[in-house]
Protein backbone atom coordinates (compact mmCIF):
# COMPACT_ATOMS: atom_id res chain seq x y z
CA UNK A 1 0.00 0.00 0.00
CA UNK A 2 2.58 2.59 1.06
CA UNK A 3 5.16 1.29 -1.43
CA UNK A 4 2.58 1.83 -4.15
CA UNK A 5 2.00 5.23 -2.52
CA UNK A 6 5.70 6.06 -3.02
CA UNK A 7 5.42 5.17 -6.72
CA UNK A 8 2.34 7.38 -6.90
CA UNK A 9 4.21 10.19 -5.21
CA UNK A 10 7.06 9.92 -7.75
CA UNK A 11 4.51 10.07 -10.57
CA UNK A 12 2.89 13.16 -9.05
CA UNK A 13 6.32 14.82 -8.60
CA UNK A 14 7.35 14.28 -12.21
CA UNK A 15 3.93 15.23 -13.65
CA UNK A 16 4.01 18.73 -15.20
CA UNK A 17 7.58 19.19 -13.97
CA UNK A 18 8.48 22.88 -14.33
CA UNK A 19 12.10 23.85 -15.01
CA UNK A 20 13.76 25.50 -12.02
CA UNK A 21 16.29 28.30 -11.92
CA UNK A 22 19.48 26.84 -10.51
CA UNK A 23 20.95 28.56 -7.46
CA UNK A 24 24.26 30.25 -8.48
CA UNK A 25 27.49 28.80 -7.12
CA UNK A 26 28.67 29.75 -3.64
CA UNK A 27 31.70 31.45 -5.18
CA UNK A 28 29.47 33.57 -7.43
CA UNK A 29 27.17 34.59 -4.60
CA UNK A 30 30.12 35.42 -2.36
CA UNK A 31 31.64 37.57 -5.14
CA UNK A 32 28.40 39.58 -5.32
CA UNK A 33 28.33 40.08 -1.54
CA UNK A 34 31.99 41.13 -1.44
CA UNK A 35 31.59 43.45 -4.43
CA UNK A 36 28.71 45.17 -2.64
CA UNK A 37 30.82 45.42 0.51
CA UNK A 38 33.73 46.99 -1.39
CA UNK A 39 31.35 49.46 -3.09
CA UNK A 40 29.86 50.25 0.31
CA UNK A 41 33.31 50.77 1.82
CA UNK A 42 34.49 53.06 -0.98
CA UNK A 43 31.27 55.11 -0.81
CA UNK A 44 31.59 55.48 2.97
CA UNK A 45 35.26 56.39 2.71
CA UNK A 46 34.50 59.06 0.09
CA UNK A 47 31.63 60.48 2.14
CA UNK A 48 33.79 60.69 5.25
CA UNK A 49 36.43 62.70 3.40
CA UNK A 50 40.12 62.65 4.40
CA UNK A 51 40.74 61.04 7.79
CA UNK A 52 43.92 61.88 9.64
CA UNK A 53 45.90 58.92 10.88
CA UNK A 54 43.29 56.32 9.99
CA UNK A 55 45.74 53.82 8.51
CA UNK A 56 48.39 54.55 11.13
CA UNK A 57 45.82 53.84 13.84
CA UNK A 58 45.24 50.33 12.45
CA UNK A 59 48.90 49.41 12.80
CA UNK A 60 49.87 51.52 15.82
CA UNK A 61 47.80 49.64 18.38
CA UNK A 62 47.82 45.85 18.69
CA UNK A 63 44.28 46.00 20.11
CA UNK A 64 42.93 47.70 16.98
CA UNK A 65 44.81 45.19 14.82
CA UNK A 66 43.29 42.25 16.68
CA UNK A 67 39.80 43.71 16.26
CA UNK A 68 40.48 44.13 12.52
CA UNK A 69 41.49 40.48 12.35
CA UNK A 70 38.57 39.29 14.48
CA UNK A 71 35.98 41.36 12.62
CA UNK A 72 37.49 40.28 9.30
CA UNK A 73 37.11 36.63 10.27
CA UNK A 74 33.58 37.21 11.57
CA UNK A 75 32.58 39.11 8.44
CA UNK A 76 34.10 37.01 5.67
CA UNK A 77 33.86 33.57 7.29
CA UNK A 78 30.36 34.43 8.56
CA UNK A 79 29.34 35.39 5.02
CA UNK A 80 30.72 32.12 3.60
CA UNK A 81 29.08 30.09 6.38
CA UNK A 82 25.78 31.92 5.83
CA UNK A 83 25.81 31.18 2.12
CA UNK A 84 26.89 27.56 2.67
CA UNK A 85 23.98 27.09 5.10
CA UNK A 86 21.56 27.30 2.16
CA UNK A 87 23.45 24.78 0.03
CA UNK A 88 23.09 21.07 0.81
CA UNK A 89 26.40 19.22 0.52
CA UNK A 90 28.48 22.22 1.70
CA UNK A 91 28.21 21.32 5.39
CA UNK A 92 31.96 20.88 5.98
CA UNK A 93 32.78 24.30 4.55
CA UNK A 94 29.92 25.76 6.56
CA UNK A 95 31.11 24.14 9.78
CA UNK A 96 34.75 25.27 9.41
CA UNK A 97 33.88 28.87 8.46
CA UNK A 98 31.24 29.10 11.20
CA UNK A 99 33.84 28.10 13.80
CA UNK A 100 36.36 30.63 12.42
CA UNK A 101 33.76 33.43 12.39
CA UNK A 102 32.67 32.80 15.97
CA UNK A 103 36.28 32.38 17.08
CA UNK A 104 37.26 35.71 15.49
CA UNK A 105 34.32 37.59 16.96
CA UNK A 106 34.76 36.00 20.39
CA UNK A 107 38.51 36.56 20.53
CA UNK A 108 38.29 40.19 19.37
CA UNK A 109 35.48 40.88 21.85
CA UNK A 110 37.44 39.29 24.69
CA UNK A 111 40.54 41.34 23.90
CA UNK A 112 38.52 44.58 23.58
CA UNK A 113 36.70 43.82 26.84
CA UNK A 114 39.94 43.07 28.68
CA UNK A 115 41.57 46.26 27.31
CA UNK A 116 38.50 48.28 28.25
CA UNK A 117 38.43 46.93 31.80
CA UNK A 118 42.16 47.41 32.38
CA UNK A 119 42.21 50.78 30.56
CA UNK A 120 45.21 49.73 28.43
CA UNK A 121 43.92 51.12 25.15
CA UNK A 122 42.90 54.63 26.26
CA UNK A 123 39.78 56.53 25.18
CA UNK A 124 38.07 56.07 28.56
CA UNK A 125 36.74 59.63 28.72
CA UNK A 126 35.10 59.56 25.29
CA UNK A 127 31.37 60.45 25.20
CA UNK A 128 29.21 57.32 25.00
CA UNK A 129 26.98 58.70 22.24
CA UNK A 130 29.93 58.31 19.84
CA UNK A 131 29.79 54.55 20.52
CA UNK A 132 26.11 54.57 19.57
CA UNK A 133 26.90 56.58 16.43
CA UNK A 134 29.39 54.00 15.17
CA UNK A 135 27.00 51.19 16.19
CA UNK A 136 24.24 52.67 14.02
CA UNK A 137 26.70 53.34 11.16
CA UNK A 138 27.77 49.68 11.27
CA UNK A 139 24.13 48.65 10.90
CA UNK A 140 23.66 51.05 7.97
CA UNK A 141 26.81 49.78 6.28
CA UNK A 142 25.56 46.21 6.64
CA UNK A 143 22.29 46.84 4.80
CA UNK A 144 23.58 46.40 1.24
CA UNK A 145 26.02 43.44 1.45
CA UNK A 146 24.18 41.89 4.39
CA UNK A 147 20.83 42.26 2.69
CA UNK A 148 22.18 40.49 -0.38
CA UNK A 149 23.59 37.72 1.83
CA UNK A 150 20.22 37.17 3.53
CA UNK A 151 18.35 37.18 0.20
CA UNK A 152 20.77 34.55 -1.17
CA UNK A 153 20.24 32.47 1.96
CA UNK A 154 16.47 32.68 1.51
CA UNK A 155 16.87 31.44 -2.07
CA UNK A 156 18.63 28.29 -0.86
CA UNK A 157 17.52 25.22 1.07
CA UNK A 158 18.21 25.81 4.73
CA UNK A 159 18.60 22.73 6.89
CA UNK A 160 18.90 24.35 10.32
CA UNK A 161 17.03 27.66 10.25
CA UNK A 162 18.05 29.06 13.65
CA UNK A 163 21.81 28.41 13.52
CA UNK A 164 21.87 29.45 9.84
CA UNK A 165 20.12 32.70 10.74
CA UNK A 166 22.61 33.36 13.56
CA UNK A 167 25.74 32.89 11.48
CA UNK A 168 24.34 34.79 8.49
CA UNK A 169 23.56 37.74 10.75
CA UNK A 170 27.07 37.63 12.23
CA UNK A 171 28.45 37.73 8.68
CA UNK A 172 26.08 40.45 7.49
CA UNK A 173 26.59 42.84 10.41
CA UNK A 174 30.26 41.87 10.64
CA UNK A 175 30.72 43.31 7.14
CA UNK A 176 29.12 46.58 8.23
CA UNK A 177 31.14 46.73 11.42
CA UNK A 178 34.37 46.05 9.53
CA UNK A 179 33.70 48.99 7.20
CA UNK A 180 33.19 51.31 10.16
CA UNK A 181 36.18 49.92 12.06
CA UNK A 182 38.54 50.43 9.10
CA UNK A 183 37.52 54.08 8.71
CA UNK A 184 36.68 55.17 12.27
CA UNK A 185 39.38 57.48 13.73
CA UNK A 186 38.15 57.25 17.34
CA UNK A 187 40.41 55.54 19.87
CA UNK A 188 39.52 53.33 22.81
CA UNK A 189 38.80 49.69 23.56
CA UNK A 190 35.33 50.48 24.94
CA UNK A 191 34.44 52.25 21.70
CA UNK A 192 35.60 49.27 19.63
CA UNK A 193 33.67 46.89 21.87
CA UNK A 194 30.36 48.76 21.83
CA UNK A 195 30.49 50.73 18.59
CA UNK A 196 32.15 48.19 16.31
CA UNK A 197 32.00 44.66 17.74
CA UNK A 198 28.62 45.31 19.34
CA UNK A 199 26.80 45.50 16.01
CA UNK A 200 27.28 41.86 14.88
CA UNK A 201 26.77 40.54 18.42
CA UNK A 202 23.63 42.52 19.29
CA UNK A 203 22.02 42.39 15.84
CA UNK A 204 22.54 38.64 15.48
CA UNK A 205 20.84 38.13 18.86
CA UNK A 206 17.97 40.49 17.99
CA UNK A 207 17.48 39.14 14.46
CA UNK A 208 17.85 35.46 15.28
CA UNK A 209 14.19 34.68 15.92
CA UNK A 210 12.58 36.68 13.08
CA UNK A 211 15.12 35.53 10.49
CA UNK A 212 15.04 31.96 11.78
CA UNK A 213 11.25 31.88 11.42
CA UNK A 214 11.50 33.48 7.98
CA UNK A 215 13.99 30.82 6.87
CA UNK A 216 11.82 28.04 8.30
CA UNK A 217 8.87 29.41 6.33
CA UNK A 218 10.47 30.29 2.99
CA UNK A 219 13.80 28.47 2.60
CA UNK A 220 12.58 24.88 3.00
Amino acid at each position, binding site marked *: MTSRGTRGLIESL*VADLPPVR*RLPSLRGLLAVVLALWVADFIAYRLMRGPIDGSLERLTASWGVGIVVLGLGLAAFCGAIAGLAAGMPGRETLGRVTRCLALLGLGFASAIALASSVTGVDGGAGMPIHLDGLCFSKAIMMALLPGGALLVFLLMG*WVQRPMSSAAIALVGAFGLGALTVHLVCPLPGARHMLIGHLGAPVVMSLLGLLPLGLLLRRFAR
Partner: protein
Amino acid sequence: MAAAQAGDADQYRALLEEILPVLRGLVRARVRDSGAAEDVVQNVLLSIHRARHTFRPERPFGPWLRAIARNAVVDSFRQVGRRLEREVGVEAIDQLAAPEARRPPEDGTLSPRLEQALKSLPEKQRQAVELIQLQGLSVAEAAAVARVSAGALKVRAHRGYKALRRALAGVDH
Protein backbone atom coordinates in the same frame (compact mmCIF):
# COMPACT_ATOMS: atom_id res chain seq x y z
CA MET B 1 19.46 15.98 -11.80
CA ALA B 2 20.65 18.68 -14.20
CA ALA B 3 18.11 17.38 -16.73
CA ALA B 4 15.42 17.39 -14.05
CA GLN B 5 16.24 21.01 -13.26
CA ALA B 6 15.61 21.77 -16.92
CA GLY B 7 12.16 20.12 -16.69
CA ASP B 8 12.94 16.67 -18.16
CA ALA B 9 10.29 14.52 -16.44
CA ASP B 10 11.55 11.17 -17.78
CA GLN B 11 15.09 11.76 -16.55
CA TYR B 12 13.72 12.92 -13.21
CA ARG B 13 11.54 9.82 -12.84
CA ALA B 14 14.52 7.61 -13.70
CA LEU B 15 16.67 9.41 -11.14
CA LEU B 16 14.09 9.17 -8.33
CA GLU B 17 13.54 5.46 -9.03
CA GLU B 18 17.29 4.89 -9.08
CA ILE B 19 17.86 6.56 -5.73
CA LEU B 20 14.77 5.02 -4.12
CA PRO B 21 16.59 1.84 -2.90
CA VAL B 22 19.40 4.01 -1.50
CA LEU B 23 16.90 6.18 0.36
CA ARG B 24 15.01 3.13 1.66
CA GLY B 25 18.28 1.65 2.94
CA LEU B 26 19.22 4.91 4.58
CA VAL B 27 15.82 5.30 6.24
CA ARG B 28 15.32 1.68 7.27
CA ALA B 29 18.67 1.72 9.06
CA ARG B 30 16.99 4.15 11.46
CA VAL B 31 13.28 3.24 11.28
CA ARG B 32 12.32 -0.39 11.94
CA ASP B 33 8.62 -0.18 11.21
CA SER B 34 8.30 -0.60 7.43
CA GLY B 35 5.13 1.50 7.15
CA ALA B 36 6.63 4.39 9.07
CA ALA B 37 9.87 4.02 7.09
CA GLU B 38 7.98 4.37 3.82
CA ASP B 39 6.34 7.57 5.13
CA VAL B 40 9.81 8.95 5.90
CA VAL B 41 11.06 7.92 2.43
CA GLN B 42 8.17 9.90 0.94
CA ASN B 43 9.12 12.93 3.03
CA VAL B 44 12.72 12.61 1.79
CA LEU B 45 11.48 12.50 -1.82
CA LEU B 46 9.41 15.64 -1.23
CA SER B 47 12.47 17.39 0.27
CA ILE B 48 14.63 16.41 -2.70
CA HIS B 49 11.95 17.79 -5.01
CA ARG B 50 11.76 21.10 -3.17
CA ALA B 51 15.55 21.47 -2.91
CA ARG B 52 16.34 20.43 -6.50
CA HIS B 53 17.22 24.01 -7.50
CA THR B 54 20.19 23.97 -5.09
CA PHE B 55 22.04 21.17 -6.92
CA ARG B 56 25.08 22.29 -8.92
CA PRO B 57 26.16 19.93 -11.73
CA GLU B 58 29.86 20.61 -11.07
CA ARG B 59 29.47 19.34 -7.48
CA PRO B 60 29.09 15.63 -6.57
CA PHE B 61 25.52 14.35 -6.31
CA GLY B 62 26.09 11.98 -3.34
CA PRO B 63 26.86 14.51 -0.59
CA TRP B 64 23.99 16.74 -1.79
CA LEU B 65 21.54 13.84 -1.67
CA ARG B 66 22.77 12.56 1.70
CA ALA B 67 22.58 16.03 3.27
CA ILE B 68 18.95 16.45 2.23
CA ALA B 69 18.01 12.90 3.17
CA ARG B 70 19.67 13.10 6.58
CA ASN B 71 17.82 16.28 7.48
CA ALA B 72 14.51 15.09 6.07
CA VAL B 73 14.82 11.95 8.23
CA VAL B 74 15.49 14.07 11.33
CA ASP B 75 12.55 16.34 10.45
CA SER B 76 10.30 13.31 10.01
CA PHE B 77 11.28 12.00 13.45
CA ARG B 78 10.40 15.37 14.94
CA GLN B 79 7.05 15.42 13.13
CA VAL B 80 6.22 11.87 14.17
CA GLY B 81 7.17 12.69 17.74
CA ARG B 82 4.91 15.74 17.75
CA ARG B 83 2.10 13.74 16.12
CA LEU B 84 2.35 10.97 18.69
CA GLU B 85 2.15 13.56 21.44
CA ARG B 86 -0.90 15.25 19.99
CA GLU B 87 -2.86 12.69 18.05
CA VAL B 88 -4.95 9.80 19.17
CA GLY B 89 -5.30 6.78 16.91
CA VAL B 90 -8.45 4.71 16.41
CA GLU B 91 -7.34 2.30 19.12
CA ALA B 92 -7.08 5.13 21.62
CA ILE B 93 -10.38 6.55 20.46
CA ASP B 94 -11.94 3.14 21.03
CA GLN B 95 -10.54 3.09 24.54
CA LEU B 96 -12.39 6.30 25.26
CA ALA B 97 -15.70 4.66 24.41
CA ALA B 98 -17.52 1.98 26.41
CA PRO B 99 -16.35 -1.62 25.74
CA GLU B 100 -19.54 -2.46 23.84
CA ALA B 101 -18.95 0.49 21.53
CA ARG B 102 -15.54 -0.75 20.36
CA ARG B 103 -14.98 -1.66 16.76
CA PRO B 104 -15.01 -5.42 16.23
CA PRO B 105 -11.51 -6.14 14.94
CA GLU B 106 -12.48 -9.18 12.91
CA ASP B 107 -14.80 -7.51 10.39
CA GLY B 108 -13.27 -4.01 10.41
CA THR B 109 -16.63 -2.23 10.74
CA LEU B 110 -17.03 0.75 13.04
CA SER B 111 -19.02 0.66 16.23
CA PRO B 112 -22.31 2.62 16.05
CA ARG B 113 -20.99 5.15 18.55
CA LEU B 114 -17.78 5.80 16.63
CA GLU B 115 -19.74 5.97 13.39
CA GLN B 116 -22.13 8.49 14.93
CA ALA B 117 -19.23 10.54 16.30
CA LEU B 118 -17.53 10.51 12.90
CA LYS B 119 -20.72 11.72 11.21
CA SER B 120 -20.89 14.63 13.64
CA LEU B 121 -17.49 15.96 12.46
CA PRO B 122 -17.21 18.74 9.87
CA GLU B 123 -16.80 17.30 6.37
CA LYS B 124 -13.09 18.17 5.95
CA GLN B 125 -12.08 16.78 9.36
CA ARG B 126 -14.08 13.60 8.81
CA GLN B 127 -12.43 13.05 5.43
CA ALA B 128 -8.93 13.48 6.93
CA VAL B 129 -9.64 11.03 9.78
CA GLU B 130 -11.17 8.45 7.44
CA LEU B 131 -8.34 8.63 4.90
CA ILE B 132 -5.58 8.20 7.49
CA GLN B 133 -7.14 5.96 10.13
CA LEU B 134 -9.75 3.93 8.25
CA GLN B 135 -8.31 3.68 4.76
CA GLY B 136 -4.72 3.44 6.06
CA LEU B 137 -3.25 6.04 3.70
CA SER B 138 -0.03 7.84 4.54
CA VAL B 139 -0.23 11.58 5.18
CA ALA B 140 1.23 12.33 1.73
CA GLU B 141 -1.27 10.01 0.03
CA ALA B 142 -4.22 11.36 2.01
CA ALA B 143 -3.14 14.93 1.22
CA ALA B 144 -3.03 14.07 -2.49
CA VAL B 145 -6.55 12.59 -2.33
CA ALA B 146 -7.93 15.60 -0.43
CA ARG B 147 -6.01 17.97 -2.76
CA VAL B 148 -4.43 19.89 0.12
CA SER B 149 -0.90 20.17 1.50
CA ALA B 150 0.34 17.54 3.95
CA GLY B 151 0.47 20.18 6.68
CA ALA B 152 -3.17 21.22 6.13
CA LEU B 153 -4.28 17.60 6.16
CA LYS B 154 -2.45 16.96 9.44
CA VAL B 155 -4.17 19.98 11.00
CA ARG B 156 -7.59 18.75 9.84
CA ALA B 157 -6.92 15.23 11.15
CA HIS B 158 -5.64 16.58 14.47
CA ARG B 159 -8.76 18.70 14.94
CA GLY B 160 -10.90 15.74 13.94
CA TYR B 161 -9.27 13.50 16.57
CA LYS B 162 -9.86 16.09 19.27
CA ALA B 163 -13.50 16.53 18.24
CA LEU B 164 -13.93 12.74 18.17
CA ARG B 165 -12.51 12.42 21.66
CA ARG B 166 -14.87 15.09 22.91
CA ALA B 167 -17.83 13.48 21.15
CA LEU B 168 -17.04 10.02 22.50
CA ALA B 169 -16.42 11.29 26.01
CA GLY B 170 -19.78 13.10 25.83
CA VAL B 171 -21.55 9.90 24.77
CA ASP B 172 -20.09 8.00 27.74
CA HIS B 173 -21.01 10.60 30.37
